[in-house]
C-alpha cells in the first residue's frame, strides 16, 4: 500500500444529493475537487463557482482568421500572383469569393475550437489518470453521481474528507492511489520503440510517395499527354528504317521558294549570270560577318588569310586575299560556297541564300581592308 494517495471519492444517490454535496464541499473550503456524472448536471457549474468557458472568444478569433486568411489568399492569387481574364470578369471579382470565404471561416472556427478544447482545456489525450479503472469511474460513467477530493488540496486530510463525505450522505467512500507505472509519465520522445516506429513510417510513406508519383502515376490509364504519338522536329521514329522521323525531299522535287541552284558544277555560267542581290549595307556586312565567323573562319581564318584553326587536321585552304579571288566576280565566290570546290563541300545546307551573299560582301570587305590602297584613306 506504498502508493501515494490521489484522492478520496464518494458517490451520491441523485442529482439533487450531488448538487447539495457540491455546495457543502465548496462551503467546506475544498478547491482541488472534481464532480463526476454520466451527463452534465444543470446548475452544477453554478454551484461549483465555475467561470463561463472562454471558448467563445477562441471561436471568434479562429473564425476571423479563416475569413481574412481566405479572402487574403484569393486576393493575392487573382491580383498579384496570376491574374487571368476569366469570362470577361475583373481580376478581383469579390462577390465570387464569398462562398469560399464563408466555408473556410466555418471550417477553421469549428475545427480549431474543438482542438483547443481537447488539447488545452481537457488536456487530452490522457489515459493515465489515476481515476481510470476505479469502481468509482465505472459508476459515474454509467449512472453514478460522484465527487472526488484530491490529496493535493491544501485543506486535504484523509480522515476529515471521509468525514465530510459521510456528512453529505456520500456512499462508497473510497481512496484512489497513483499507479507507480503512471507517475511522472513524461513524453518518451526518445523511446527507441517510438524512434523505430517513426523511421518505419517515414520509410513507408516516402517509398510509397516515390512509387506513386514516379511509377504508378505514369502507368495506363493515367495519361499526362507526354507521349502524343506526333513526330516533332528531330524526333526519332520507329517506323522509318533509319530511326529518324525526319525525311529528305525526293530528288528532283522543287519546294516553294527553293528553286534549285541552276549552276551546280558550272562555275563559268555562275560567274557570268550571278549578281549580288544585296547592297553592302552595315546590317548586311554585320550579318555576313557572323555567318563568316561561324561557317568559314574555321578553315579560312578570321581574316580570310587561309590560316586554319584546325592545326593541319584538315588541309589549309588558299588565302581569300589572293589576286585571283580578288578579281573573281561575286558570282564565283557565291558559287564556291553553294557548290563547293575541290575538297570544300557545299554549304548550301547550312547557310541561307541571302546569308551567302552577305558573306560575299564580307569577304570583299576583308580583302579591301587588308590590301587598302592610298585612295581608300581619302
Amino acid at each position, binding site marked *: 500500500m506504498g502508493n501515494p494517495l490521489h484522492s478520496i471519492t464518494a458517490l451520491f444517490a441523485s442529482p439533487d444529493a450531488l448538487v447539495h454535496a457540491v455546495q457543502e464541499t465548496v462551503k467546506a473550503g475544498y478547491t482541488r475537487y472534481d464532480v463526476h456524472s454520466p451527463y452534465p448536471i444543470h446548475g452544477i457549474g453554478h454551484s461549483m463557482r465555475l467561470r463561463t468557458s472562454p471558448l467563445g472568444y477562441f471561436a471568434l478569433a479562429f473564425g476571423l482568421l479563416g475569413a481574412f486568411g481566405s479572402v487574403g489568399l484569393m486576393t493575392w492569387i487573382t491580383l498579384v500572383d496570376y491574374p487571368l481574364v*476569366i*469570362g470577361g470578369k*475583373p481580376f478581383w471579382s469579390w462577390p465570387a469569393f464569398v462562398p469560399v470565404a464563408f466555408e473556410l471561416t466555418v471550417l477553421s472556427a469549428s475545427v480549431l475550437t474543438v482542438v483547443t478544447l481537447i488539447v488545452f482545456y481537457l488536456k487530452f489525450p490522457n489515459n493515465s489518470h489515476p481515476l481510470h479503472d476505479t469502481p468509482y469511474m465505472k459508476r459515474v460513467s454509467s449512472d453514478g453521481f460522484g465527487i472526488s477530493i484530491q490529496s493535493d488540496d491544501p485543506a486535504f486530510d484523509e480522515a476529515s474528507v471521509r468525514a465530510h463525505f459521510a456528512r453529505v450522505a456520500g456512499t462508497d467512500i473510497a481512496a484512489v492511489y497513483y499507479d507507480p507505472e503512471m507517475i511522472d509519465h513524461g513524453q518518451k520522445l526518445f523511446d527507441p520503440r517510438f524512434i523505430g*516506429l517513426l523511421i518505419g513510417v517515414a520509410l513507408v510513406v516516402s517509398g510509397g510517395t516515390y512509387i506513386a508519383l514516379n511509377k504508378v502515376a505514369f502507368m495506363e490509364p493515367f495519361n499526362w499527354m507526354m507521349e502524343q504519338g506526333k513526330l516533332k522536329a528531330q*524526333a526519332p*521514329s520507329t517506323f522509318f528504317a533509319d530511326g529518324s522521323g*525526319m525525311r529528305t525531299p525526293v530528288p528532283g522535287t*522543287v519546294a*516553294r521558294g527553293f528553286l534549285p541552284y*541552276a549552276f551546280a558544277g558550272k562555275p563559268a555560267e555562275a560567274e557570268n549570270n550571278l549578281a549580288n542581290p544585296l547592297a553592302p549595307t552595315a546590317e548586311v556586312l554585320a550579318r555576313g560577318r557572323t555567318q563568316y565567323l561561324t561557317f568559314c573562319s574555321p578553315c579560312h581564318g578570321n581574316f580570310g588569310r587561309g590560316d586554319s584553326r584546325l592545326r593541319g587536321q584538315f588541309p589549309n585552304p588558299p588565302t581569300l586575299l589572293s589576286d585571283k579571288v580578288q578579281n573573281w566576280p561575286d558570282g564565283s565566290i557565291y558559287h564556291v560556297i553553294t557548290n563547293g570546290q575541290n575538297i570544300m563541300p557545299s554549304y548550301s545546307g547550312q547557310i541561307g541564300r541571302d546569308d551567302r551573299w552577305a558573306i560575299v560582301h564580307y569577304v570583299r570587305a576583308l580583302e579591301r581592308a587588308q590590301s587598302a590602297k592610298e585612295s581608300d584613306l581619302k
Partner: protein
Amino acid sequence: MSEFQPGVTDAFSPDELSPISRKQFLGLLAASAAFAATGCTDYRDKGEIVPYTRKPEEITPGVANYYASTCTGCSQACGTLIKTREGRPVKIDGNPDHPINRGKLCAKGQASIISLYDPARLRAPRYGAASTKSGDVSWDDADAEVIRHLTETRRNGKSIFLFTSPAQSPTLRNLLTEFAATYPGTRIIPYALLNDESRRRAWEACYGAVPLPVILWGDASVIVSLEADFLGTEGFSIEQSRQFAAGRDIMRSTRFNRLYTVESGFSLTSANADYRLKLHPSAQTAFVYALLNEILLRRRAVAVPRALQAAVESHDIGNFCARHGVAQDVVTHLVDDLLASRKKGIVYAGPGLPEETHIAVNVLNDLLGNTALYSNSTTEAEGLRPASSREVESAVAGMRAGLAGVVLHFGVNPVYDLPRSFGYAEALKLVPLSVDLAEAESETGQLCTYMLPVNNALESWGDYQVRTGLYSLQQPVIAPLYSTRQREAILLHWMAGQTPFVETLYHAYLKNHWETRIFPSLDRAVSFEAFWNASLHDGVVPGQASAALHPPLNRTVLAGLAVGEERTTMMLSWNEGPFTGDGRFANNGWLQELPHPVTRVVWDNYAAVSPATATALGVEMHDMLTVETASGSQTLPVFVQAGMADNVVAVSTGYGRWNAGPVGSGVGTDIIRLFPGAALNGGRLIPLVKAHKASGRHELVTTQEHHSLDDTFVKDFHLKRKIIRENTLARHLQDPLWLQREHREYDSISKEVEYHGVKWAMAIDLNKCTGCSACVASCNVENNLPVIGKEQVEKGREMQWIRIDRYFSGTPEDPVSSHQPMLCQHCDNAPCENVCPVVATNHSEDGLNQMVYNRCVGTKYCSNNCPFKVRRFNFYNFRDYFADGYYLQEPVSLVYNPEVTVRSRGVMEKCTFCVQRIMEARQHATEQGVTFNGAGVRTACEVACPAEAIVFGNMNDPASAVSRYREHDLAYHVLEDLNVRPNVTYLARLRNTHTEKTS
C-alpha cells in the same frame, strides 16, 4: 492490495497509447513529409534527338515546306499546295496559283492525306486469290511472271486487257499508247461509273465534235439547275462554288444572282437555292420543252425554225405545272427572269438526266443567247473517252471467251464499281493472269493473281490537263513509305523487259515527254531545266491559249427527238456519294464521319424518299426498304427526306464495299448491283420494278436530331431564337437597318475587359457559305481530330470542332433549308470560363478563349455551360477506341500536325482559332523585328472555304476585312440576348426572291 480488479490492468498498458501522443505525431508527420518530398524528385527521360546528318537546303527543322502538286482524288485534278514538316506531308491545301481551284480544296482532297498513312496499304507485292500461292511475293518474281505472260499473250495472239480510269494525264496517255505498241493486242478500256456522257453526247449532237464548254458561273445572274448538284459533287465544284458565291457577295455588290433548282432529291445546291421546285426526274425533258414553248410564245419577234416550233408547241407550261403540281408563280418568275437576263443566265442539267434533256437544255440556252456565258478562252480538255457499256460488255465477253491472256487493273476497281450485270467477277476468274495495281487490297485485287502495291499520290510524279491551255504537275513530297512503285513506272518496267527497276523510271519518262513533246509546243525562251523547275515550283503551266470555238447550234436537233415519256412511277435516282465518291474513299475515316451536307447522316447511305412516298410504301425512318430493278435488288435503310419528289428513291454511291479495309468494309449498302450496264452511258435514272418494306431496322446515325417540320412545339426555332437571321434581298435594300435596329447594348455590373493590340475575330457570310464541309475536313486534318466511329456518333459524341448546322422551316412538302457553320465563338464573356474550377479555359491577351489541355481535369462543366455546344470531350482515347485502335497503328501518327497537341482521353477540346498558326505568325514577326498586327494569319477553315465565306483577322485593325464585316448592316451574333459577346460574326442570309411588291 490494488484497487484494480484482476484482468484489467495487465492488458491495459498505457505505454501502447501515450507514446504516439500529439507532439510526437506532429513530429512524425513532419518527418514523413520530408521523406515524401524527396520521393517526388525524379528525372524523366524525354527521348533522344535525331538530327540530319546532311541537312537538305530547303529543310529547317521545325519550319514547314510547301510543294505545289496536283490532287488525284477525282477527275477535277485540282492544284494542291502540300505542307510538309521535315519532309513529311502533314496537310494538303489548294494551290493559290491554280486558275481553277485558286487555293481551295474540297473535303475529299483535304482528308485524302490520311490515305498515304493508311495502315491498310499494301506494303509489298502479294498473291491474290487467283494464284495458287498466297502471301507476299518479291517484285522480281512478280515482274518476271507478268512479263512472261505478256510476251506469251502477244505470241499466241491473245489480247491484254487494261482497265483504267479516263486518264487526264497527257504523259500517261502517251505511255499507254506506247505500251499498246510494245505489246500489240493490248486493249485499253477506260471507264468511269461517275461520268458525264449524256451531257457530252448531247453536246456533240448539238454542236458537233467539239469539247464541252467551260461555263462562267460568276457572270450568270440567273441560274436554273435541273437535277444538278453543281455546288456539291458535279463538275468543277470548287470553281463553281467560288463563282456562285462571288455572285452573292454583299460586301462587294448588292446585286445577287438568282438560283432556281428543279429536282427530285434534296441536294446541297437546293439548300442554297432561292427558289426550289420538286419535280419527278422523268418529267424534266417535258419541263424544258414547256419552258421552250413558253419562251417562244413570249418572244414571237425572233424567227424560230418551224422544226423547233413544232417540237415544243404541244407543251403548254400551264398544263405542265398543273400536271406535276409545280408552283405556277415560281415558274412564271423563272421564265420572266430567263427572258429578262438573256446572255446572263444559264440553264444547267445534271449528269443524271438523259441525253434528250441535255439537248433540250442546250437549245434553250442557245435560244436565250446564254452561250455568251461559255468561256471563249478555254474548254474542257478531252481525256480518254470513257468506254460505253457496249465496249465494256464486249471486253468482258472476251474475257469470258478466253481471249484475254492478261488483265491489268490500272487504278480501277471493276469488281466493285462495274454494274454487276456485266458479270465481271466471274469473267475475271477465267483469265490466266490478272494483276491489280493498287494502293490497298480491294474487291478486284482480292480476285487477281497479283496485287502490286503502287505509290500514293503524294509519292508520285505526274501531269494533268483538264482544260485546254492549262497543265498542272504532280511531284512527290515523300519517298515511298513501303516497297511500292508508281503505277506508270511498273508499266514502263514491263515494257523495258528484264532490266533492273530504277526508282526514277517514270520521273525520267515524264520529264522526257515534256521536253520532247510539250515544251517545244509552248515556245518558251528559257532552257528546259529552268522551265521544268519553275513549273514544278508553281505547279501549273499555262499552255498555249487556243480560242474555244462554239459552232452554231444544229437547231433541228429537237425535231427527231422524242420527249421521254413522263412516267411518274417509282424511279431510282442515284448520285455520287458526297464524300465517298465512287467508293475509293471508303476506308477514309475522316470522310466517312463527315455528315452528309443535307441529311447530316454519317457512316451510311440510304434510300431517301419523300414523306408521301414513305407513307405509300408504309415505311418510316430507319425501316428497311427493298428496291428491285431489272438488274437486281437491294435492301437499304429508309431516310424520309422532306421536300423530295414523290415516287423517287434517291441513293448514293460509294458505300457497301466488302473489301475496302478495316474502316470502310461493310459501311453502308452496295447499290451498284441495282445498276444496268447502261449506267456507263450517262444518265442516273433507273425504273424500279418493285419497292416494298423489308423486315428489320437499321439505325441511321445523324449528327443532329431530326424534328418533324410540322411539330409546332419546336418549329422554326432557328428563326424564333435568332440563331439564323434571314431576309430577302429586296426587303434588305429597302430597309438596310432592319437587323441593326434590333441590336441592344447591355449594361454589365463590371467594366468590360479591354483588348489593346491584336484581337482575333471571325466573320462568316451566310450568303456565301454553301455548306460544302470543306472547312470541317480541313479542321480535322489541321487539328489532329480523331475518328470516333458510327456508334459513338450515335451516342452524340462527335468530335468535329466546326460543324455545319442545318435547319429546315416551311412544310414537309416544301421545306426551306438554312445552314450555318458553328464553331467556338470565343465569347468575350465566355460562360465556359466562369465555371471551370481549374482555370483550364480562360482568355488570352488577344481575345482567344483558350484551352489548357494538360490542366483540364474534364469536369465537362464548360460544355454544359456553352450556349453553342461547340465544346468536344474525349470520352475515350478515341484513337485507341475506334476500330480496335486502327488509327493507333503505324504510321498514322505521321499525319499529326506537330504543332498541335494530340489530346488524351478525359480532356475537353474545341476550336482554338488555329492558335498554332497565330503563334507561328507572331514568332515570324518577332524574328523580322516588325510589330505584329495580325495580317496574314488564316485559319484552316478559312483557307479551305471554296466560297470564301470565312474571314479571320484582327478586329482592332480597322483596315482588316473582319472589322469591315463586323460593321456591316447584316452583321449579327448568335443568341445576342445572352450578352456573352461572341467574336464570330455572321452576315444574315438574304434570299434573292421576288418580294419587291410583297414587302
